[in-house]
């Protein structure tokens, strides 16, 4: 009895998470390009849970009607699951702008195994291929259930593969997390489908679907937030907001330091090695800043072009100098393997307490930067 409650609870929870996401998706004024596909996917995952629940609740009811409903639910569950596996593939193809997504014929070829599976599923009530329903009106696996698992897995792993491949490509460095989350929609449910096959009573792969849908949705949303699209650092707006709030309050930790960082000869990199390489250089700098300054609680942003900013609360000038050295050291380490010189000029200024506007602070930090540049 308790087990049944637990079962229902998890399913309801998953449905609730999906509903919440669906509402967020539909009311979000920002139209995601793939809103329709996502809506369909959410709806289908939800229906999976509903069919599964109904089927489980019908166990023990042996009237002909209950049997018929159970047959319907089982078939619907399997069919939706297959369509989902296929939709994932389409969804990922769409998001990665792959060619097959546009070609009707290729899509048709790819859906042939699904058609075959449909035949097997619809034949199951008579022949018991994929599933059977026993005298107690309980769903049990059919004789060739593994074929179904196999087909689902092939689609899901294909999804995982085409998205996962890009995680390791330098070209798509800044989209890495997007690709990880897209790969997860294939890998996670696929993996749990196999686990489920061997150990499970619970629809683990459906739970995994909820998790990966959540991952993708949150990632898609967070990409729209006002970050700098290239480096995923804060943009200029955020810097102003942050600086205003910091200068407005009295800090215990020391004074507010504003760092202005500038890539040396960035234009040369762009001109000689192309914009892609220039973007990569910017990403390297962003990565170094995240690694060295993030853990210290600094605020990092990309102002524009090759200019970055840091804001930190530091006790004294020595600490500021230490940060500067740490950044330069890390950059030098990373730059060793690059075909061009990559170095940063860093200028900083400390706020002198109340009455100073962000603008003044900026001017002084800029002045320090130009002094530094002139010294080189």
């Amino acid at each position, binding site marked *: 009895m*308790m087990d049944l409650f637990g079962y229902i609870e998890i399913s309801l*929870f998953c449905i609730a998470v999906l509903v919440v996401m669906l509402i967020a998706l539909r009311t979000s004024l*920002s139209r995601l390009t793939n809103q329709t596909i996502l809506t369909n996917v959410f709806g289908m995952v939800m229906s999976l849970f509903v069919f599964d629940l109904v089927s489980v609740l019908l166990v023990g009811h042996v009237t002909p009607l209950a049997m018929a409903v159970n047959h319907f639910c089982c078939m619907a569950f399997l069919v939706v699951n297959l369509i989902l596996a296929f939709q994932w593939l389409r969804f990922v193809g769409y998001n990665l702008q792959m060619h097959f997504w546009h070609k009707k014929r290729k899509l048709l070829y790819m859906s042939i195994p699904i058609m075959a599976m449909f035949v097997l599923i619809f034949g199951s009530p008579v022949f018991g291929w994929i599933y059977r329903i026993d005298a107690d009106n309980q769903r049990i696996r059919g004789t060739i259930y593994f074929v179904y698992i196999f087909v689902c897995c092939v689609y899901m792993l294909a999804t995982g593969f085409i998205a996962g491949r890009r995680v390791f490509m330098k070209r798509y460095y800044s989209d890495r997390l997007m690709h990880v989350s897209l790969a997860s929609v294939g890998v996670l449910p696929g993996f749990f489908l196999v686990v489920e096959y061997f150990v499970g009573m*619970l629809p683990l792969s459906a739970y995994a679907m909820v998790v990966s849908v959540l991952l993708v949705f949150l990632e898609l*949303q*967070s990409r729209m937030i006002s970050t700098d699209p290239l480096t995923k650092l804060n943009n200029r707006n955020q810097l102003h907001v942050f600086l205003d709030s910091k200068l407005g309050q009295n800090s215990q930790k020391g004074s507010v330091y504003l760092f202005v960082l500038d890539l040396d000869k960035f234009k040369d990199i762009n001109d000689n090695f192309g914009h892609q390489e220039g973007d990569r250089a910017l990403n390297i700098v962003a990565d170094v800043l995240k690694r060295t300054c993030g853990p210290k609680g600094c605020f990092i942003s990309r102002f524009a072009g090759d200019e970055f900013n840091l804001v930190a609360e530091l006790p004294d000038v020595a600490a500021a100098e230490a940060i500067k050295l740490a950044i330069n050291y890390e950059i030098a380490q990373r730059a060793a393997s690059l075909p061009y010189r990559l170095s940063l000029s860093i200028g900083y200024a400390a706020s002198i307490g109340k009455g100073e506007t962000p603008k003044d602070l900026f001017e002084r930090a800029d002045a320090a930067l130009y002094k530094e540049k002139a010294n080189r």
Partner: protein
Amino acid sequence: MTQYVTVNALCAVIMTILMFMVKRGVMHEADQKTFFNLCFHCLLLFSLDILWVFLDGESFSNGPLLNKIVNAAYFVQSGVLCYYWSRYSLFLSGNKVKLWKVHKVLFALPMIVVAVMSIASIWTGWFFTVDSSNVYHRGEFLIVQVSIIFAYLLYSFFVAVFAIKQKRELVNRNKLYAISALGFMPFFANIVQIEYPGLSVFCVGTTLGLVVVFLEIQREMISLDPLTRLNNRNQASIYLSTRFKQDIPGKRLYQFAMDLDKFKGINDTYGHMEGDNALLIVSTVLKIVCGPRGHFISRYGGDEFVVFANLPDDAAADELCEVIEDRLAKRAMGLPYALKMSIGYAALQDGENEESLGRRADEALYEIKKRRRAEQI
């Protein structure tokens, strides 16, 4: 038992995802920290819960002691979590910091009581006992823990409800609804958990609440201008594209283009902080005037604001301009500089597109600016 572990694990995974997203996203600093902490405390609670399920009823050397320690930790953590939960509710509903400091100790007191009693329970068996076959039983004073947790959650629920009633501005609404869900979900879940103790409903409630809040935070960050919390330019164009598809009988779409007079002068003379303050005053006035009337307000950047309204005729548009200017004049009374806005508007004509509407509104604005300058000279 499988279900118990599964549901906890599922919640733990979702919590981890949220924490990960928070860590690399760009939320406002204070928000980020509190939200992250909250997620972390939830995660800890879920982990302890899972650990307990594995220990309970298993017999091995020192089993009962270990079981007791895990249980004590679980109860301590439940108090800590609810404490942070209420704090987050308070924080989100923007309650005064001063008031908060006075009550700080008082507010943390129940949590400390729960913590002390939980640890004492290892010996006294107040909250729980573990018998010789290593099975958990409820203690006689468990009601204390439950009611303290109840009190915290109920408190955060009322804080949220109160805040919703108080703040009627359009933009804050959704977030406050989310907070109320945040307070309400675990509260409701807790009741269910008492009825059916074998179920792990608590984690479901908290997880769902936090997912709702996180989605809401994300939504806000996508669509709002960080300074004034008004809609940004993106939102305006999305609003327009949906508005263009529908027709409201008897009303026409008006675009109001607004511009602060001599904003640059304020910035240069009084500094950027004061400039921002001026923008905030303007945005408040717009929210007060246009919010209740259902008009769409947005900040296009700098000192440029745009309002979209569905109005019957030009007279109504003129009236709106007047109300805005009046309100602004009242608000600007105590300021050392003159704070005035120029407003130009244009009504949508048949077959017109967004661009041309915007251009005509801008032209109207410049016309007014020119006239004002001429008057001054």
